């Protein structure tokens, strides 16, 4: 049925609604009420099959926590995480393990994300072992095939992670994730620990794998320049909230939120003679324990007004598919 098929096509692979993750702080005194930090406070977005969503923000804005909460590596406090139409937040242990075959994570630091006491074959083959997939003999073949897919020689299977360079380790990390044939990959700053030249290789590898395997990426990064190369849509996060979400094209050419604009103006341009008008932000990210009233960005916003202090801005659709949360739009 063509109608049904079309409906199926449009259903997003991942849909996150009002995701909240708070942590309880240690009580300062016996009679004090418990205090909470909202690392992620109400994040919503959706990701279609085969597409890439970039999630950008400075360190401490909650983008990594959001990624971990989606995979339930930390338990989300509230909100819905719909993966292929089913709410991951309510999965039992058993369902969760099945879900982990389909949704995987690539980690930031390739020097910390591989167990130093396991061989490459063990690292890449472990997912198959844990999920009881394939007999022992076939597993080695599968590992070799996956290693080849990420551009490593299958001969390196017997070696340990410390014998590889950063870029190669990240390839091993990607291979480990690919053995299970996941549909969704959350990449948490996958290239920020690498040299610039290696960054490009890994990004190209990820793009190629997406084309070949139809993967969907949630690409978490603090680097707008990297995100531009790989993402169809970009979400900008500030202090646990998405302040602007739009097709990449719009974010880079018609940014609406003042925070997005200042982030964009901070991208270095490799031409020393070119003068750019930078919008420099004053101060630091406010503490999420005690966030500012109204718009959380107002303490650093160059255009803040009275209303910003009093009311939390709603998400407004500026253009089709382009949302931003600012009173001044």
């Amino acid at each position: 049925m063509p109608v049904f098929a079309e409906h199926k096509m449009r259903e997003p692979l991942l849909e996150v609604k009002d995701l909240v993750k708070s942590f309880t702080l240690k009580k300062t005194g016996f009679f004090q009420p418990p205090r909470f930090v909202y690392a992620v406070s109400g994040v919503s977005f959706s990701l279609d099959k085969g597409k890439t969503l970039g999630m950008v923000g400075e360190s401490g804005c909650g983008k990594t926590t959001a990624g971990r909460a989606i995979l339930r590596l930390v338990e989300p406090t509230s909100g819905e995480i719909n993966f292929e139409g089913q709410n991951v937040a309510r999965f039992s242990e058993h369902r969760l393990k099945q879900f982990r075959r389909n949704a995987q994570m690539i980690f930031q630091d390739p020097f910390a994300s591989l167990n130093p006491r396991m061989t490459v074959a063990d690292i890449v083959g472990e997912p198959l072992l844990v999920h009881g997939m394939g007999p022992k003999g076939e597993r080695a073949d599968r590992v070799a095939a996956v290693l080849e897919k990420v551009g490593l020689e299958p001969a390196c299977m017997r070696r340990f992670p410390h014998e590889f360079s950063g870029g190669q380790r990240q390839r091993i990390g990607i291979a480990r994730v690919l053995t299970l044939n996941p549909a969704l990959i959350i990449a948490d700053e996958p290239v920020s620990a690498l040299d610039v030249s290696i960054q490009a290789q890994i990004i190209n590898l990820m793009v190629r794998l997406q084309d070949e395997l139809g993967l969907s990426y949630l690409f978490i990064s603090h680097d707008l320049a990297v995100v531009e190369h790989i993402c169809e849509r970009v979400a900008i996060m500030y202090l646990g909230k998405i302040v602007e979400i739009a097709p990449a094209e719009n974010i880079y050419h018609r940014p609406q939120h003042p925070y997005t604009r200042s982030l964009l103006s901070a991208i270095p341009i490799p031409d020393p003679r070119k003068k750019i008008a930078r919008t420099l932000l004053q101060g630091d990210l406010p503490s999420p324990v005690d966030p500012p009233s109204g718009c959380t960005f107002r303490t650093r916003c160059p255009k803040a007004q009275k209303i910003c202090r009093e009311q939390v801005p709603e998400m407004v659709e500026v253009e089709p598919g382009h949302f931003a949360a600012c009173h001044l739009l």
Partner: protein
Amino acid sequence: MDIVSDNHRSSSNNRDLFRGLHLIFKNPLTTLGMGILFILMVAALFAPYLAPYPDQGRGLSNLRQRLEPPGADHLLGTDNLGRDILSRIIFGARISLQASVAVILFVVIIGVPLGLVAGYFGGKIDDLIMRFADMILAFPSYLLAIAIVASLGPSLLNALIAITVPWWPWYTRLMRSQVISLKELQFVESARAIGVSHWRIMFRHILPNCLSPIIVQATMDMGYIILAIASLGFLGLGTQPPTADWGVMVSNGREFFMTQWWISTFSGAAIFLTVLAFNLVGDGIREALDPKIRWRFQKN
């Protein structure tokens, strides 16, 4: 497809855990310790062939040659029952080594898994295990050991139990602190993301990465356990005569110490040298396994 040529390939292809262990021979003190331990192990293994009077080593008395000073017949003299001190020391090495290896095994088998579980799960399980460990550590350890032997009755096996009970909490603590720092690392989270079970994470991912401090601690403790066994022997709560035991020998020689000094002195020296040797080797292993100070060896 871009097959990457790797230029960071390191030459060593050794099996991970003992990477760099060969470096311990670069330290002369460690080599000395290894030498002493080697002699000790050979003595223990081949005691019946090496001891000049194997029967006396096993406990046969020879009253005609009581309390003879060191000389050609008896290199280290004889004790109050006429037994050759050297033979007794050589046979005593067997008891000391076997007993200390047994205690270390008990202590590691009890302490390490408890620390692993406490550190990994945290929360109530952690509280329960660690408060119990604290409770045992709060007792003076020798007093606890003496109380245990006193209630179970003096024998070597009971002495081993008595030493194990106050000792394992140190391993639980050491292990727990290691696990707490390791479980935050990305490779543990990566294992969780893949769906690896808690037990597999603990034993396959975390445990192999915290073995080196345990190995160092166990080597150092071998010496102290020998000392503890000798102490209980000295008090008459460990090995029972006529089995040769260094602590019992020191205690035996005590009443003759002013005139026949050799009984206590030589058996005491055996204890001292053994403890020293284990300490030197433990230090050497620690330095060789610690990547932060390993460069010192590699430079020259």
